[in-house]
């Protein structure tokens, strides 16, 4: 089948993924109440905290405060928590964290990525097809993701990118972390990529790759399908394999049971 993803024979799949993880902001580690209070907090939901990964944030630690990474992490472990990463901190603290096998996690707060329509993002369709998402600061340690929990930790916000113009040949647009909406047509030789769904309010004549981070629930919608290639989460179909019956029609494209489906959009207008 031509719509099977390439690189199936690779011995692994490298993907970006998002985990909800606790961050322990340490401002006064030498406060005698520090561990007793933490222990009390953990006692409220012992199962949730058991072997839970935690990222230390030392940005609020006053400069010059002595901090023994080793001893601190051991005390955390005694409470059931595992320090898996360090955010911020001084050079010494970072070295100590690395020595303990912890990851250095840069502050990946919000969306720092900027959109440069012509320079593209350095991503290529091949990367999208292969599900190789180079998410630079994905949590490094494979900690078990805590189940939906009493912690008020919001999931990373999915944003929508809107392009209110025609997308010309040669232009590559990537919507990281969310949907891409194009109000206009997409020319042959143009390429749309999104971690979420792609909506084209116009004719889709170029390439559209939705769910490039591996999201199999993402979809592609367009007003007139004449695409060179469509792909969802790595499964693709080239123009030649798109049937005449659905060409130049309003369609939606989605995955179901591992197959790429292209269905006409049927609207019931009374």
């Amino acid at each position, binding site marked *: 089948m031509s719509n099977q993803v390439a690189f199936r024979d690779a011995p692994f799949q490298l993907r970006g993924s998002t985990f909800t993880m606790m961050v322990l902001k340490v401002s006064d580690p030498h406060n005698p109440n520090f561990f007793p209070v933490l222990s009390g907090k953990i006692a409220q939901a012992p199962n949730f905290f058991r072997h839970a990964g935690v990222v230390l944030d030392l940005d609020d630690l006053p400069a010059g405060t002595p901090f023994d990474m080793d001893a601190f992490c051991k005390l955390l472990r005694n409470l059931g928590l595992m320090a898996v990463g360090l955010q911020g901190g001084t050079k010494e603290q970072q070295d100590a964290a690395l020595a303990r096998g912890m990851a250095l996690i840069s502050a990946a707060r919000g969306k720092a990525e900027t959109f440069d329509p012509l320079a593209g993002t350095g991503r290529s369709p091949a990367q999208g097809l292969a599900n190789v998402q180079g998410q630079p600061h994905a949590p490094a340690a494979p900690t078990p993701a805590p189940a939906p929990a009493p912690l008020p930790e919001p999931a990373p916000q999915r944003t929508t990118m809107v392009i209110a113009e025609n997308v010309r040949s040669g232009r590559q647009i990537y919507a990281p972390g969310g949907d891409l909406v194009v109000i206009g047509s997409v020319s*042959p030789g143009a390429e749309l990529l999104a971690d979420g769904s792609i909506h084209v309010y116009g004719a889709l004549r170029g390439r559209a790759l939705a769910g490039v981070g591996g999201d199999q629930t993402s979809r592609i919608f367009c007003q007139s399908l004449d695409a060179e*290639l469509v792909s969802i989460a790595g499964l693709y179909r080239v123009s030649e394999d798109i049937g005449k019956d659905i060409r130049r029609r309003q369609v939606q494209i989605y995955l179901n049971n591992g197959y790429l489906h292209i269905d006409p959009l049927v609207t019931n207008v009374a």
Partner: protein
Amino acid sequence: MAKIITMTSGKGGVGKTTSSAAFGTGLALRGFKTCIIDFDVGLRNLDLIMGCERRVVFDFINVINGEARLSQALIKDKRVENLYILPTSQTRDKDALTQEGVGKILDELKKEFDYILCDSPAGIEKGALMALYWADHAIIVTNPEVSSVRDSDRILGVIQAKSRRAEQGLEPVKEHLLVTRYDPERVEKGEMLKVEDVLEILAIPLLGIIPESPAVLKASNVGMPVVLDDKSNAGQAYGDAVGRFLGETIEHRFIKPEKKGFLDRLLRRTA
């Protein structure tokens, strides 16, 4: 031993891609396993001329960047046995080409193919340099007009200075001249350069003269290499050029205006 042929011109719009498609197809028709590579990154056209644009998934740049294997990017022609196309990327630019990256792919292709035909972009910048660096043969596509001839002269100089064969002091790249869009009637009226004039300036062996023909545009628009249109004079002329390249002695055709019959002349006068 596989040979690398670069189709180049300096000037744009003279018919490099049309000639690459026709010449490569002609080689494959003669039984040689042939691969045509589009070096015009960002202005991808070869796949359109070859009629395989609906089958492009991975491209040359993906292979250079290690994002796809060569076998995944090569497109097999449906009409001609032994013919493959390596399309390029439309969303990148020439900076995506690296000498080592291109060299590695050509080495790999050399194991499989008899001829590797590099369709060069116009200009004398990076894209064109990458397309000609590894060449064993260069086919210079020239229109019979002064600016095209001057640019061809320039690109010949570049080949003689900047190709791998020049750099390493090997036997020089073999040069061939392909004159395209030749209109014998306009030559006769003095509106176009004669083949002899072009040859006098460029002084390289003449591989073929392709007459101006409506069949070329027609073939391009339906995605068919014009050499497959063996009823057209352009198609026949490309076939002849391939024969000469392979060492056959074939007389040049389509240099003189077609003899008009009495009826033609009569009709023209009244038209």
